[in-house]
């Protein structure tokens, strides 16, 4: 009855960006944020 799903480890977006030398630019534009659930915002692109 146990259902097992194989998972494959893939190259992360960080590695992809680092290889393309775009990581710094990405991190500056998208700083890590832990929680957004209670952010009061509307769809910025309706």
């Amino acid at each position, binding site marked *: 009855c*146990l259902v097992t*799903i194989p998972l494959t*480890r893939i190259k992360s*977006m*960080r590695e992809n960006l*680092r290889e393309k030398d775009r990581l710094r630019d990405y991190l500056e534009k998208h700083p890590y*944020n832990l929680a*957004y659930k209670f*952010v009061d915002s509307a769809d910025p*692109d309706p």
Partner: protein
Amino acid sequence: GVYYEPMRNYLDLAYVGTISIGTPPQEFRVIFDTGSSDLWVPSIHCTSPACTNHNVFNPLLSSTFRISGRPIHLQYGSGRMSGFLAYDTVQFGGLVDESQAFGLSLREPGRFMEYAVFDGILGLGYPSLGLGGTTPVFDNLWKQGLIPEELFAFYLSKKEEEGSVVMFGGVDHSYYSGDLNWVPVSRPLYWQLTMDSISMNGEVIACDGGCEAIIDTGTSLLIGPSDIVFNIQKIIDAKQSYSGEYMINCDTINTLPDIVFTINGVDYPVPASAYIREDHQGTCYSNFDEGRGGLLLSDSWILGDVFLRLYFTVFDRANNTIGLAPAV
């Protein structure tokens, strides 16, 4: 008609599984994510550049597809997805989950999915974390009597590519050694527990007096409050690079002591070989990262794949507990 849910930065996600949606089935590579609760994949109507790199769902090809017409907007730590809610049959590992609610993206603005190697995300968090009025995949599996026990478990292999699994409805004991230590979920929203402390060489270096931690398969690193993580980077002599990452001398993998996460009175050591990662060019980076700008979670930790590769983890919805044991 606008719904938001907490999602994080998927920059480091690295484990994907295959599911199919629709009749006949259309295949997608998704992250099985305990830090969110919804399922979504890109739709054929998505016009964003990010969608061109991924498998997209075509509703017209599925005889079991039903549309709800409800718009959804999922806000990420690094971008957002806009689309609509739909229902269809979802299949994986021989399970057939009928009338499953899922999101179909119409827009994935920004670049956040452009570099992703996965198509979508399958959330395994609590229902209250997901879109209101919908039943998450795991809850549907249980309600439809498709699994014998109301739990699932993750084994993340330390090897490069293969060997990792997520199991539903039971636990395969061959993936861990010793006994599972059960910890109560402190807040049934995320898979969240109360951690006693974080120490090195017997000295508490963080989480003094206790703190909250989320066990999250959708995060790769060990994420903590910025000032505290900054202090840990200093302790392990990690230096910030031009890209903002913390680099560290690879030789220290052999000399730095374990960092011990104590949970419910049990020590879970994380060796330097786990909290330092070496890339293919031979450069080493700290696997600690800081959470920025978080609201309610600002004092919490997120224990991601770095921790889960060391400790087999059972997520028990029936008892609201998390089981941890050393992975083999």
